[in-house]
C-alpha cells in the first residue's frame, strides 16, 4: 500500500457517509458505573467511554433509528476496577448479555438483524473474550451473542479466536493532554538508539520467565542488557515521554496481550516503533501503512535485534521518521476531547463507513434465528 493512498484514507471525513443511532440505556450500564469509579476515564481502556461521549454530540448521530446504518450500545464493560486500577472482566459477559437483552426487547432493530448492523466497543485485553488470561480467553471465545455484531477493540492477532472477521482494531487510549504537556523542541537531537521502559520478567505471575510475553521481553533483556546502544530498564522515569522524543527506535514488545499504549506513544513522539509480536494486527491497519512506519521483528529473531536494527539503511530510517512526522498519523492515534478532525474517533467511523452498505443477508428473514441465547458458560447466563 503506497503512502499516497493511505494518506487519503486517513483524511476521509465520515460525516455524511453514515448515520449512527445511540441506544438510550439506563444509566446503570454507563453513567452509574463511571460515577462509582472515575479512574475509568484515565486508564488505557477509556476509549469506550469517550466513544460514547463523542457519538452523543457528533453530526453522524441520528435520533431516528429508521434511517440509521449502525446502532451503538453504550455499555462500559471495562470499568469494574480493582483497588490498584485493573479492570476485572468477570462480570462483563453478564453485563453485555443483559444490555443486549434490553435492546432486543425494547427495540426491534436487534432482532431484525441479530446484531449485524450493531457495533460495540470492547477495549479489554482480549476484546470480547472477556478474560485477561489468554488460555481462558481462547476457551471462552467471543461472547456468542456478539457473533454477528461488529466489534471495535484494541486486541488484534491473526488467526486468533478473539479477533473476528470484520472487527475494527483501535489504538488503546493514551491521554492526549499529558503527552502534549511533555513535548520538547523538535531540534533536540535524537541521541538514544533504542529505548524501552517496562517489565522484562513478571515475577509475580511468571517467575521463571518464558510465559510472559512468550519469553520475548526476557530475551531482549538477557541479550541486550549490556549493550550501550540499548537504553532499556524497568525504571519508571518522570522523563519517559521526553526520553522517547530523544530516541530513534522504541521497542513495543508484546506483554500478556500483544497490544500496548507504547505504540501510540511512539507514533506521537516520532520514535520508530519496533513491534515484536507475532501475527499482531495493528490499529487502523487499512488506513495506516505500518510496514512503512515501523520495524517488525519476529519473536524468534529477538537475539539478532541489534544486527537487524543497525543494518537498516540511514535513508530508510529518515524516510520512516518523515512518515511518522505526518500529523495525520499522530492524530489518528489519539482520542482528544473535544474531538478533532481525522482523530481516532473519525477513523473508527471511517472504518464503519467502509463496511457500508450492509450485505443483503444482514436482515434476517422472518422467523429465522441464528444466535443461540443459551450457549456459553453457565456463569454468563445469570442476570446482571
Amino acid at each position, binding site marked *: 500500500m503506497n503512502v499516497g493512498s493511505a494518506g487519503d484514507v486517513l483524511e476521509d471525513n465520515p460525516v455524511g457517509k453514515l448515520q449512527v443511532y445511540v441506544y438510550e440505556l439506563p444509566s446503570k450500564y454507563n453513567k452509574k458505573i463511571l460515577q462509582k469509579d472515575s479512574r475509568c476515564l484515565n*486508564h488505557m481502556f477509556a476509549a469506550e467511554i469517550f466513544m460514547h461521549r463523542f457519538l452523543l454530540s457528533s453530526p453522524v448521530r441520528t435520533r431516528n433509528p429508521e434511517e440509521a446504518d449502525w446502532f451503538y450500545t453504550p455499555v462500559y464493560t471495562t470499568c469494574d476496577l*480493582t483497588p*490498584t*486500577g*485493573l479492570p476485572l472482566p468477570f462480570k462483563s459477559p453478564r453485563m453485555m448479555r443483559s444490555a443486549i437483552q434490553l435492546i432486543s426487547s425494547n427495540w426491534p432493530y436487534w432482532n431484525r438483524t441479530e446484531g449485524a448492523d450493531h457495533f460495540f466497543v470492547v477495549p479489554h*485485553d482480549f476484546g470480547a473474550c472477556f478474560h*485477561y*488470561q*489468554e*488460555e*481462558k480467553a*481462547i476457551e471462552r*471465545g467471543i461472547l456468542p451473542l456478539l457473533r454477528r455484531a461488529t466489534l471495535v477493540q484494541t486486541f488484534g*492477532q491473526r*488467526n*486468533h*479466536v478473539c479477533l473476528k472477521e470484520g472487527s475494527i482494531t483501535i489504538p488503546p487510549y493514551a491521554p492526549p493532554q499529558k503527552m502534549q504537556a511533555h513535548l520538547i*523542541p*523538535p*531540534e533536540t*537531537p*535524537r*541521541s538514544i*538508539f533504542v529505548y524501552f521502559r*517496562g*517489565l522484562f520478567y513478571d*515475577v*509475580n*505471575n511468571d*517467575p*521463571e*520467565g*518464558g*510465559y510472559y510475553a*512468550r*519469553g520475548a521481553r*526476557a*530475551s531482549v533483556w*538477557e*541479550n541486550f542488557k*549490556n*549493550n*550501550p*546502544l540499548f537504553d532499556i530498564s524497568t525504571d*519508571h522515569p518522570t522523563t519517559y515521554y521526553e526520553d522517547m522524543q530523544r530516541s*530513534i527506535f522504541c521497542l513495543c514488545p*508484546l*506483554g*500478556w496481550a500483544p497490544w*500496548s499504549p507504547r505504540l501510540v506513544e511512539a507514533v506521537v513522539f516520532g520514535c520508530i516503533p519496533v513491534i515484536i509480536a*507475532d501475527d499482531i494486527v495493528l490499529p487502523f491497519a487499512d488506513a495506516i501503512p505500518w510496514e512503512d512506519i515501523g520495524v517488525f521483528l519476529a519473536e524468534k529473531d*529477538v*537475539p*539478532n535485534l541489534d544486527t537487524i536494527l*543497525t*543494518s537498516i539503511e*540511514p535513508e530508510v*530510517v*529518515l524516510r520512516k*521518521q518523515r512518515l511518522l512526522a505526518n500529523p495525520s498519523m499522530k492524530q489518528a492515534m489519539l482520542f482528544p476531547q473535544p474531538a478533532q478532525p481525522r482523530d481516532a474517533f473519525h477513523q473508527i467511523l471511517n472504518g464503519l463507513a467502509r463496511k457500508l452498505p450492509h450485505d443483503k443477508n444482514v436482515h434476517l428473514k422472518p422467523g429465522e434465528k441464528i444466535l443461540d441465547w443459551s450457549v456459553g458458560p453457565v456463569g454468563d447466563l445469570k442476570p446482571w
Partner: protein
Amino acid sequence: MKPSLLQQQSRRSNSFRGSNPLDSSPDGGGGAGKSPAAIFWLVLHGLCCLVSLVLGFRFSRLIFFLLFSTSTNSNTGLYQTSPFRTVADIAENLAFSTSLPSLDSSPANRTTGTAGVSSSGVVVGRHGILIRPWPHPNPDEVMKAHRIIERVQREQRAQYGVKSPRTVIVVTPTYVRTFQTLHLTGVMHSLMNVPYDLVWIVVEAGGVTNETASLITKSGLRTIHIGFEERMPISWEDRHRMEARMRLRALRVVSEKKLDGAVMFADDSNMHSMELFDEIQKVKWIGAVSVGILVHSGHSDEDLSVRNEGDESNSPVPIQGPACNSSDQLVGWHTFNSLPYVGRSANYVGDRATVLPRKLEWAGFVLNSRLVWKKAEDKPDWVKDLDMVARDEANVESPLSLLKDSSVVEPLGSCGRKVLLWWLRVEARADSKFPSGWIIDPPLEVTVPARHTPWPDAPPELPTSEKVTSIKESSEKRATKTRTHRSRRGSRSKRKHEARSVDAHVSERHSGEN
C-alpha cells in the same frame, strides 16, 4: 503495556489461587486422558512438590527435563535458558506451579481449548528465552548505529536548524603571557565545537610568535594569524584601546580578503555558549547580544562591600546589551555601571583589583562582513567606511563607531533576554614567568636538596645526587640525575602520602626561583 501488566499481576495471583493446576496438565500430555504420559507427569509433579516443600523453594519439573533429556531443541545455536534460571533465580519465590511445563517444541499440541480454530503459528504457553551465545555488542554494528544516529541528527539540524548557514568569522586579539594558554584553549575548544564553517583571525600583539602559532594550529580550524607590531601595554586603559585597534586591523583583513560571513569578536578570556553561534546566523547587518559581565577581584571583602552598595540597582551579574521595549524594538542599551567600583578598579594588568569592562564591549556585537568591504552591493548607507573609522583609531570604543546611526542595531537572543556569552578578564602579574610553551625543556635548572627525607628506607645515594646545585655539568648528566631523582620521588609518592607533600613543597620552591 505497564498498567495492563500490573493488572495481570494482581489478577493472576487471584485467579491462580483459584485454579487447579492439575486441571491443565492433561492438555500438555498429548490429548488422551489417562495415558502413561499423564500419569508420569502427575507423579513427577507430586515429587517436585515434595522436594519443594523440603527445600523451601520451587523445584521445577524442568530440572528433570534437563537431567534426562538430550536437548534437541537447538534453534541454530541459541540457548533456551528457562531450566537454568529456575534454580538460580527463584530461591525466594514460593510460587504456584503454572500449567504447561514443557519447553517449546511442537506447536500442535500446545494450544489449549482450540475450539476449532485454525492453528496459528503463534503458540500459547511457555516458550524458551532465546539467548545467543555471545550476547555482547559487535563493534561494527555499534559503528553503524552511530552512523545512523549521526545521519538522523544531521537531518534534524537541516530541518529545524538554520537554513544556508553562513561562515563565522571570529576575531581574537591576544598576546603571549602566562594566562594566554588557558584563555586561548578555552576559546579554541568552543570554536572547534561550532557546527558551521569558521575562519579564525588571531591578531597577536608583539608580532607573530611560535607559541601562539603552535597553539592555534592544534585546533584544526582555518586560521589567519596576524602580527601587530606593538607590545601589549601594562595599563588596562591602554590595553583596551590597543585591543580595539587590533580588532580594526582584523576587520581590514576581512575587507581586503573579502571574507563573507558573520563577524564576531571572541576575546580570548571570554566564555561563549554554543547557542551564541546559532544566534549570530540570524544577523542581517549588525546585531547585539547580551553579555554577562563577570567582575571579580582578588579580595573577597572588596567584592562584598561593592555588592552591598550597588545591590538595589544592579542585577547580580551585570549584563551589557541591547534594551528592548515590549514590542521587541531596540530602545537603548544596558551598559556596565562602574560607579560602585570607582577608585577600586584595577589599573594594571595583573593588579589584584577588579577589572572593569568598557561601557559596551566589542564581544557583544556581530557584524555582517559585507559592512566592512570596500564595495558591496546592498551595503547600507548608515555604515561608515572602514578606512575613515580606522584613521581615528584611538577613539574607537565599540563597533557602534562604525555606524552613523546606532538605532539600526538588531537585538539578538530573544531581544537581549538571553545571555549568550560572558566577559571576564583574569590575568597574572605582568612579570610572572612561565615555561615557554608550557614545556619544561631543558629540565629545571636548579635542584634544591631535600634536607629532611621523611621516608625511612631512603637509599644512601639519594641525598648526594640531590646536593648537586649549580655545578656546571653537562645538561644530559644533569637531566638523567634529576630525572631519576624525580622518578624515584614519583614512585615514592605513590607509596607515601608525606612524600607527595614534600614533592609539592620542593617544586614550589623551584617555580619561585625560576
